[in-house]
């Protein structure tokens, strides 16, 4: 199954039967609610995951941009990001399929922690592949996974980040496919994963639509979501794709520059939709960051969760058809967005989300329209250290002073 030119199943033959089995399970359980699968999924999302999440009118952002800005609060989902929507769905599906074990890859650790939580909740053994570099720079998330009793297996290949972790998870799956389900973390990979993950994340836009209708009786003019692999963006857009009056903006990580260093095989950004070219990566034809030979480039973003050289094929297709507008925001603008939301609204966003917030500053009034919905894909607790370091490096305006540790006084009276 493809989305225009994109999608497909570019995987080893050994995995094809598992993908057929998964496609069958997807149709029966997810699309047809066989054995009440979707009912159970929705109930667990509610009581375990904390759904529905609020759609909050953001007073100060609205004032700043002269429009009504609504925030979809996925940062309040259990685990701190939208990732649980998908992880819970897939682990539950694996259980319905009679699988005995769960594997997953993780980059920044958000998908890994969500999967570990879901696996603990549903009593499934779980192993998470994580690049060695990421295990070292995302220690708290490694701890969280271990606390939920998941195995965490560092991957020592390549740069040791998300790309390598996905490749390694695919290798494990090629080995263990008969008993194991691979919980992929975004709308990427071979069919049916992009559709499956989209279906689980679509709850975001279903709620937005209903909540905004309750609050204002209307559809939004524009919907804004950050996009790395694209699960947050696809989940946020899903129920608006057929509404032509709603503009959809996918905000990518512009990193430090949109140029690429072909010589070193490095793209200092993760803007696959904006600067990528058609290619085949991790099981799907999509837009990827690659050199002219087709070797995949090392991507970069201040946000580990956006730091990926590919993007979901459906999102690539929606961009190609003009339905979704891709925009990219550089590290510095994202950091400024991080501080703006923290200070103005009392919400510390994930650095992924900060890209979407940063883009509001660059958007024209025509792009925003009268009602904007922006999904806060996750909370920023995981990013505190990075933000502190990067804020200093980038000299971001309006960042708070962090000299509280260097003073010795504390008393107010002399």
């Amino acid at each position, binding site marked *: 199954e493809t989305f225009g030119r994109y999608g497909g199943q570019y995987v080893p033959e050994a995995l094809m039967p598992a993908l057929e089995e998964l496609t069958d399970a997807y149709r029966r359980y997810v699309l047809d609610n066989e054995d009440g699968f979707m009912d159970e999924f929705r109930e667990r999302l509610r009581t375990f995951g904390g759904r529905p999440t609020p759609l909050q009118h953001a007073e100060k952002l609205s004032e700043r941009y002269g429009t009504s800005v609504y925030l979809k609060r996925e940062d309040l989902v259990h685990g701190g990001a939208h990732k649980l929507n998908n992880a819970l769905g897939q682990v539950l599906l694996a259980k319905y399929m009679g699988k005995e074990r769960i594997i997953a890859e993780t980059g920044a650790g958000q998908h890994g922690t969500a999967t570990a939580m879901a696996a603990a909740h549903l009593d499934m053994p779980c192993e998470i592949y994580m690049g060695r570099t990421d295990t070292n720079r995302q220690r708290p998330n490694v701890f969280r996974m271990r606390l939920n009793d998941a195995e965490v297996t560092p991957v020592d290949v390549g740069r040791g980040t998300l790309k390598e972790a996905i490749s390694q998870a695919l290798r494990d799956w090629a080995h263990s496919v008969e008993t194991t389900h691979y919980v992929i973390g975004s709308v990427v990979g071979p069919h049916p994963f992009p559709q499956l993950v989209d279906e689980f994340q679509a709850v975001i836009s279903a709620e937005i639509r209903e909540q905004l209708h309750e609050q204002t009786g209307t559809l939004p003019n524009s919907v804004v979501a950050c996009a790395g692999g694209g699960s947050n963006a696809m989940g946020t857009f899903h129920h608006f794709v057929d509404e032509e009056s709603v503009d959809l903006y996918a905000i990518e990580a512009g990193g430090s520059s949109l140029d690429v260093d072909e010589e070193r*095989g490095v793209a200092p950004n993760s803007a696959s939709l904006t600067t990528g070219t058609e290619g085949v990566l991790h099981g799907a034809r999509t837009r990827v960051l690659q050199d002219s030979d087709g070797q995949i480039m090392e991507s970069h973003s201040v946000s580990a969760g956006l730091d990926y050289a590919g993007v979901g094929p459906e999102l690539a297709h929606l961009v190609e058809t003009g339905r979704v507008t891709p925009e990219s925001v550089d590290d510095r603008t994202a950091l400024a967005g991080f501080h703006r939301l923290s200070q103005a609204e009392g919400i510390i966003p994930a650095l992924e989300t900060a890209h979407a917030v940063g883009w509001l500053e660059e958007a024209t009034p025509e792009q925003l329209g009268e009602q904007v919905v922006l999904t806060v894909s996750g909370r920023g607790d995981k990013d505190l250290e990075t933000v502190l370091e990067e804020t200093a490096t980038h000299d971001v305006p309006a960042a708070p002073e962090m000299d509280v540790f260097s003073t010795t006084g504390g008393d107010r009276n002399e």
Partner: protein
Amino acid sequence: MSESDITAAFEDRPAFVPYLTAGDPTFESSIEYVEALARGGADVIELGLPFSEPIAEGPTIQQAIVRSLESGMTPERFFEFVETLGVDVPLVCMTYYNLIYQYGDAEGPRPFVERAAAAGIDGLIVPDLPVEEATPLRTACDAHGVDLIFIVAPTTTDERLTPLLEHSSGYVYVQARLGVTGARSDVSDRTSYSLDRLEGSDLPAAVGFGISTGEQAGEIVAAGADGIIVGSALVDIVAEGYEDDLTTEETAERLEAKARELTTGIIEQGRPRSERL
């Protein structure tokens, strides 16, 4: 359809099909290594064109790919590599689909196949390209007389087997066990089962994944295989040579010796293919 050079190589006795990553660890020494395998008895040689995301490879070949890429291997250099080689056995290029797709003007697989055929490549194996996605490549291969070899996995269902064999040419790569490439000391029970399933096919069946000794090679041939594919066990020798700073000649000698061991194992158990059919 006339029988290809590759298929013909399986006629007289079960074939020995070694694999090396081209350019590992350098262009020049890799040429020597491939030629040593030919001297050691190779009937067909699989040459890896390295891709940055080798999702079907275990750590041994992953590291070979890293070494090769770091030494400057590209698709164009790979074709030069093939053109430089002084061997007279059929050559199979093993790579991932993105490199094939991007070659030339990224207009599909045709330019790659054309150039490969011109360089002297007789067949292609693309581990991340199942039959369902293979039509454009199949078409290009047919147009340029290049075989397209598919892998039959232990998990391949009977329903999948028929179209898979229909699209295959050259030989069928029988994956001896689940998992990724890598030398193993055990040979899966599933190998016999897989070979039995292929009895109706016109194509020779070569078994790969995990074979590292002449004894194993003999066992598999005795079980009915038309050939054995050995990769990681040979790449290990290259890696050891690299890590222990051996001369190219020393490593080439070791490879040739290993090839002979494997060829001997095959010969001891092997009969002509006509007797096996």
